[in-house]
């Protein structure tokens, strides 16, 4: 499971950690994040992320 970086603010989504504050369980791959999930740091959409 790869990490993804937000192109706008630099936040890195780590699938191992998930995004529990926003209801995303640890172990969730980026591809399985809900389509309306946004960057917890800056609010950017999934399309603003790239694989690192």
């Amino acid at each position, binding site marked *: 499971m790869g990490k993804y970086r937000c*192109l*706008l*603010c630099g936040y890195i989504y780590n699938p191992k950690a998930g995004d529990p504050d926003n209801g995303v369980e640890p172990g969730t791959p980026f591809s399985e994040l809900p389509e309306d999930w946004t960057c917890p*740091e*800056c*609010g*950017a959409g999934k399309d*603003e992320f790239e694989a690192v």
Partner: protein
Amino acid sequence: MNHIEIAPNIYWVGYVDWDVRNFHGYRTQRGTSYNAYLIVDEKVALIDAVKLGKGRCLLEHVAEVIDPKKIDYIISNHTEPDHSGEIQKVLDQAPQAVVVASEKGKIGLQKYYPGNWNFQVMKTGDSINLGKHLLQFINTPMLHWPDSMFTYLPAQKLLFSMDAFGQHYATSGRFDTQVDMDVLMAEAKTYYANIIMHLGSIVSKTLKQAQSLEIETICPSHGVIWTEHRSRILSAYQGWAEFRARPKILVIYDSMWHSTEQMADVIADAACVAGAEVKVLKLDVNDLTTLATEVLDAAAVAVGSPTLNSNMMPTVAAFLTYLKGLKSKGKLGAAFGSYGWSGGAVEQAAECLQQAGLEMFGENISCQYRPDEETLRKCRLLGTQLAEQVIKKTK
């Protein structure tokens, strides 16, 4: 500058900073203003404050209209200290006032300022009714900080856009109709290039969102208020966000003993003869603010550096670091320069250009000590081919 009524019961109460020339590294050749606005109704709202140290002036402007103690809401559209630096001074006068901000705005303000402020958090779609003035809030994250927020008055068709559509431009006139439009658009472009360019995709999304709003007046937090010329700034933002380029080539370089300079001149002359618009920008006399502005609508950037202590010249490295952060799109890059013995700077510059998202064009051109005829031939060829390419690309 005195307070001024910009619409019935809505006042500009900010501070015009004629003197500032360095705004966190941005060269503000024409100064700036920190625009705060006051809305007087059954409830009184202040939209943003000013930079630390300028609060006395803000409070004097407010007091010309109404007793500052009567402020009920302080709307913080943007956390950056040039707008929030004097919120505490306003709260000292009006301790009952509620600070209104986005969720990220609240977090940022709490980290910047130790006071135990009374917050009200606003999401997109939330509103506050002051009486005759309804304030609607639109979160605009990363335009240009995570906390950024617009405040919109539907009845008055008035948008408080914080840093978006701003300009670092100190003037005695508060409106677009009172200043030289060429200077205003140039300062708006410089502002966009240096503060907002790297967020182009967010700008496009926000402009689409804003199409549903009826807007007659745009009140940014720096510079003049857009009224008659509002469509001009909106369409300029659209073009800038799409990185619409002119057939323009920038030749940006530094030089120690004129060799890289000679290469730059030959590339520029050939590109010019081939019909491109060319700007030659030597790094010891051009600041990064100007360079970013030129990059915004350039189609290609050729960068030249001599090798100094096995590296690029520090001026070139600084420019390339800044360029990387600007995240420009759709531009061509080229690298050239001279060296004495081991070399390396040209390859480093090419790598930085690639990392900055430019598509490399042609081969890197290096020469030892002085450019010989073969080197100059390569430089001429690069200039000519680059010109042909940018003319084709921008048709």
